[in-house]
């Protein structure tokens, strides 16, 4: 079974600063998919960014980018120019390539953005 580890239960960052959330995973698969999800206080889970393991280029979505290190099995999320609305739980997730397979989630990192 694949495991996903988020080693930072809580983090805090000031508005406009940059913060990096860590995620490591364990798998014997070669092709897989990685995701970061955001869950604000509204509870709605929102996809932030995704990465295909076969792509070497790191994914970027506006202020959000990842540092994907396949050999190290590391998938960190960088949030630049942090905004108050970024305050949320962030979950890292791993998906194997086969149809129907579920996402494995980390335990989450609670991010607080302060003024």
């Amino acid at each position: 079974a694949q495991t996903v580890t988020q080693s930072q239960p809580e983090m805090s960052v000031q508005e406009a600063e940059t913060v990096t959330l860590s995620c490591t995973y364990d798998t014997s698969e070669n092709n897989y998919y990685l995701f970061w999800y955001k869950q604000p206080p509204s509870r709605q889970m929102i996809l932030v960014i995704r990465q295909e393991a076969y792509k070497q280029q790191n994914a970027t979505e506006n202020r959000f980018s990842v540092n994907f290190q396949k050999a190290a099995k590391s998938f960190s999320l960088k949030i630049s120019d942090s905004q108050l609305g970024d305050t949320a739980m962030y979950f890292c997730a791993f998906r194997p390539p086969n149809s129907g397979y579920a996402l494995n989630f980390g335990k989450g990192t609670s991010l607080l953005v302060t003024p």
Partner: protein
Amino acid sequence: DVKVTQSSRYLVKRTGEKVFLECVQDMDHENMFWYRQDPGLGLRLIYFSYDVKMKEKGDIPEGYSVSREKKERFSLILESASTNQTSMYLCASSLSSDSARRVDFNYGYTFGSGTRLTVV
């Protein structure tokens, strides 16, 4: 806009009751999932389904069952609710791998907004 709808946002039930949590998606997704979310434990998979009438156990299926009679609806059933089933329940759906490959490799989930269940 794609949507996954969970029938209740908050629910309070008594110990021993049979509880139904309903989830409906309007995206024609093949896969549907039920997770429970607890502080410090993240999201844990209860059951999932990759087709109508098909179901697979997740990591914590004990005390739960599911039903998928139609493609768009996936129900989670607590046969006899217990206090340790007090939790947040999240439903999600996704395309199958074959379908996702045709849609820009979109393997992500779409989530419902959750049902916070309290068993007293």
